[in-house]
């Protein structure tokens, strides 16, 4: 069976080292937090100025001054710290974050990332912190479906959408397989409900067995 979004999130969480400082991108990557319990020792960073960010706030916990990058109210667990935006992005750019998990429109075999702009003429470009995260974190993991709704692969020889960062992605977690990219070959680390040969036939990039 291919993985559901929740299962993909759980699979990503398994590869996050104990005690890592981690930024989870807006959207699907947020789900990874549900699989990082207190025992993981993981400290979440949110770009709008908080470390050790807590879960989503409910009921009386909601405070308009305490939100995550997706503007969702969150809670302040013990050990939290606040800082301003220049410091927050210095943490990324300065190589202090261990892992970030981002969504993507496309990832190339060389680890190029496209996740901010479809290039459509009437689209309003909005980049947020994606470019800073892409070049900043020590490891950039992408979490996405392997194929777009129209069946075209999102793991590609060269990105056709505008780039977010060059050669920045190391791992790609999808519903059908986990890939290692950017090291000269695209290695298939694990498959879900499919086989290496099926993937090799459907993707336009040379694959290697890990």
């Amino acid at each position: 069976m291919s993985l559901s979004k929740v299962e993909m999130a759980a699979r990503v969480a398994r590869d996050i080292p104990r005690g890592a400082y981690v930024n989870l991108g807006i959207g699907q990557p947020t789900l990874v937090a549900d699989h990082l319990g207190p025992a993981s020792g993981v400290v979440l960073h949110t770009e709008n100025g908080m470390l050790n960010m807590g879960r989503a706030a409910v009921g009386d916990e909601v405070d308009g001054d305490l939100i995550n990058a997706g503007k969702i109210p969150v809670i302040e667990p013990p050990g939290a710290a606040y800082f301003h935006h220049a410091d927050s992005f210095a943490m990324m750019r300065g190589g202090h974050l261990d892992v970030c998990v981002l969504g993507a429109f496309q990832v190339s075999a060389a680890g190029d990332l496209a996740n901010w702009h479809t290039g459509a003429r009437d689209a309003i470009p909005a980049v947020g912190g994606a470019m800073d995260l892409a070049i900043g974190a020590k490891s950039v993991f992408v979490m996405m479906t392997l194929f777009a709704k129209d069946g075209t692969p999102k793991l590609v020889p060269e990105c056709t959408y505008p780039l977010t960062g060059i050669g920045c992605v190391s791992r790609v977690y999808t519903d059908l397989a986990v890939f290692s990219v950017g090291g000269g070959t695209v290695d298939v680390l694990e498959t879900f409900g499919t086989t290496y040969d099926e993937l090799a036939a459907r993707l336009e990039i040379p694959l290697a067995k890990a």
Partner: protein
Amino acid sequence: MTATICGTADEAVEGISDGSTVLIGGFGMAGMPVHLIDALIEQGASDLTLVSNNAGNGDTGLAALLATGRVRKMICSFPRQPDSWVFDGLYRAGRIELEVVPQGNLAERMRAAGAGIGAFFCPTGVGTLLTEGKEIREIDGRAYALEYPIRGDVALIGAHCSDRMGNLVYRKTARNFGPVMATAATATIVQVSEVVETGALDPEAVVTPSIYVDRVVQIGGAV
């Protein structure tokens, strides 16, 4: 000179001139100085360049200012949001100029302005549309793009508490761009929930020292 404590938001925004570059704090609505923005709308300055992370939510605050048609250019990292219909409409009608800046560069370019840095080399966005035309330099084997400061004539920010000198503390993630913008503008105007007597703030906890603050107004109660 230490900060002036103003009686009203209208008084706080007096003298902002047409053609100004206005830095506006906030990330979404957290830290958004809504009362100062409303006062700026009343005040009537036009032909403005706004610098803020987002381009307005719903119909209030920044979105209301955009709706007046007095904003020539928006510099921001993330204009497109589910409730950014005011900006979206102006942009699609060709009535506003947009400069999209990666969020960290937005913060660092203002930090540079406030710290007297002439320009800096930054790895963010190298090889993408957002560094096209910029000088690229390789330093220790890595490529960096040359980025210039963003300076404001005015900064409008929100903070939690000010003392009568203008020392500021913030609250939770409402801090965001406030401390950086406060350093980067000729005049920094702050709305706070509370003004306290000088000496009431723990000096160890002050985030923005008074040297960066020009005017303060307390919202929701007399000073």
